[in-house]
């Protein structure tokens, strides 16, 4: 039957266009449902893994999904803000490590995540280069940010104004890159991490300016008495925090009223988790506490339902495709009647001709299977990351 396989192969190779069309059709028939299922499963796994690893999330009352998506994936849709006071209240309970998050701002499209150093050990993030942010204004960037914006340790990023017309509000702060993180395959790869107080500087709640007590500040002084110095509008404010001017940066007002997007609470143990949840349920602490896994679980149920409908649709389409391919195939066999007659007259058996035809089908199916496997492998390795990137849009 080697001869039949050879002839089958040569036939397919000769009719390249037809073979390519068949190959594509069958490949898609196999790939689309398989990839849909795998990608959804992989994405769900990635989503739930991150949610599983985030025990408790605290935020303002409102949409739980928005809170979770923003805190876990730095989604652009921001929940209502809470204050730093809530962070302190959680810390004072002694029941959990409280990690602040402020995700209001962006730098060239990458979300700026204001947080504390605890976040990195919590997420298991390691440095690929440099060090953790140390001085106010320094940042640590995710691997994808470094790659896409072609920046590294020693370079800088500038925070983006929120609107073109709000330049006097949100502070375009030049942030020096202290470190670059190892790739983690999560939303952290696409983020710019700063100390939460840096985000308050960006927001204009803190700033740095020339020292009004020093002699050279004369032109910027409006009035001066024993107890107070009033500055005028010519006061120079810094848009970059350096070792030389960091002492001139300060906050005005009570920082406990400064905003946060959310607080990640890592309870000391199961009992602490229950006690902390009780405090929120009883209203002892004002805000909402959610279990990210539960919130995402509800979302994923919907996703799986949609997935099933999509796969059903694809299966129906596949059946139609099979019908069309069968028709094309039968017509093709009719057209090849003369060829088969020649083979029989030359001495080929009926079995030989059947094997020839079957081998053509077999090659197409095998080729499609291999292509579909390769595409599925590619989709699993690259498309999952691509799909999850939509979480940060």
């Amino acid at each position: 039957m080697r001869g039949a396989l050879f002839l089958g192969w040569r036939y397919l190779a000769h009719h390249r266009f037809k073979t390519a069309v068949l190959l594509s059709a069958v490949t898609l028939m196999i790939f689309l449902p398989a990839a849909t299922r795998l990608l959804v499963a992989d994405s769900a796994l990635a989503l739930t893994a991150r949610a599983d690893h985030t025990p408790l999330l605290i935020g303002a009352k409102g949409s739980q999904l928005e809170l979770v998506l923003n805190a876990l994936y730095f989604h652009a849709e921001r929940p209502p803000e809470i204050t730093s006071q809530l962070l302190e209240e959680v810390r004072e309970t002694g029941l959990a490590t409280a990690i602040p998050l402020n995700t209001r701002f962006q730098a060239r499209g990458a979300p700026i995540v204001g947080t504390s150093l605890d976040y990195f050990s919590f997420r298991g993030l390691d440095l690929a280069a440099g060090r953790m942010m140390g001085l106010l204004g320094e940042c640590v960037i995710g691997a994808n940010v470094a790659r896409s914006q072609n920046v590294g340790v020693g370079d800088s990023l500038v925070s983006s104004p929120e609107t073109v017309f709000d330049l006097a509000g949100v502070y375009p702060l030049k942030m020096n890159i202290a470190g670059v993180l190892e790739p983690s395959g999560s939303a952290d790869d696409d983020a710019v991490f700063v100390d939460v107080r840096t985000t308050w500087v960006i927001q204009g709640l803190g700033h740095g300016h020339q020292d009004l007590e020093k002699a050279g500040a004369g032109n910027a002084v409006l009035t001066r008495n024993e107890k107070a110095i009033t500055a005028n509008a010519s006061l120079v404010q810094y848009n970059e925090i350096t070792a030389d001017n960091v002492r001139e940066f300060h906050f005005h007002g009570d920082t406990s009223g400064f905003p946060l997007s959310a607080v990640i609470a890592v309870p000391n143990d199961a009992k602490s988790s229950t006690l902390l949840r009780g405090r929120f349920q009883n209203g002892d602490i004002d805000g909402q506490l959610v279990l990210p896994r539960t919130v995402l679980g509800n979302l994923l149920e919907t996703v799986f339902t949609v997935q099933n409908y999509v796969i059903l649709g694809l299966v129906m389409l596949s059946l139609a495709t099979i019908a069309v391919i069968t028709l094309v195939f039968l017509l093709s066999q009719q057209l090849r009647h003369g060829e088969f007659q020649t083979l029989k007259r030359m001495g080929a058996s009926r079995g030989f001709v059947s094997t020839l035809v079957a081998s053509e089908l077999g090659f197409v199916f095998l080729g499609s299977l291999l292509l579909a496997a390769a595409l599925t492998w590619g989709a699993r390795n690259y498309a999952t990351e691509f799909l999850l990137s939509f979480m940060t849009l």
Partner: protein
Amino acid sequence: MKKILIILLMASLMACTDKAPDNQDASDTQTRPVVVTSNYPLYFFASQIAGDQIDVRFPSIDGDPAMWVPDGDDLAMLQGADLLILNGAGYESWLAFTSLQGDNILDTTATVETMLLPIEEATVHQHGPQGEHSHEGTAFTTWLDPKLATEQARTILQGLSNLKPDQSGLFNANFTALEQGLYELDRSLARAFAALDGQPVIYSHPVYQYLQRRYNINGRSLHWEPDVEPGTRDWIDLGNLVRQHPAKLMIWEGEPTVSVREKLTQMGVRSVVFSPAGNQPGEGDYFEIMNDNIAEFMALF
């Protein structure tokens, strides 16, 4: 046969890579917890208590540690420390602009918060529609009061014992010796300042609040730096101050310039240096510096 040899070779290579590198031994610094302090007195106290059980470090700082701005290497050291021993009372102004892990910080004045002194002479600045803003603070040279210093050392003892519980016996014994030293220092300082007998003094810089309170010193403060020539305004302020507060002695945190010393002498004001010992000394330790301070002071009487 060939396969067995290859397996043996691979096993021996693996065994070699498991071996510890040559530059490490069992008792090297990498197995000891690392503790970093924010000023020299705390470094001294922690070193006395810990002995060689803990790697106590104090960053190399140029100038006053209270005005320190840590660089990249310093920040890495602070962030990597197992325990960060701070003075508290607002001493570490750099906390306001640095990012540190929250769970390894030890505030040595947390237990004596009620005994801290406010800074009365704070300048306020304002700008914009938000109005007046104050930068009031707390006096932070707490270690100049041996009683407060003892409490700070006690907090350090607790912190180090939590870090290395198996050595708490040793730490306790070392603390007892340190406590005795601070007690004797307190008595020496009391004897020294008793010689003032209520006479008014002037401080070159407002860093002696706790010394003043502890030993009932009648002092008022300027804002002079030892290495900076005072301007005309400064001399006028001094003159006005002396008229209200007829001091014959100015206590400096560092050696003033010869010309300043001479001019003060002409004004009838003697100068004496009492180093707060906030930074690592060129030579000597905390007790030696304090004893040198006492000796120089006593030489005036």
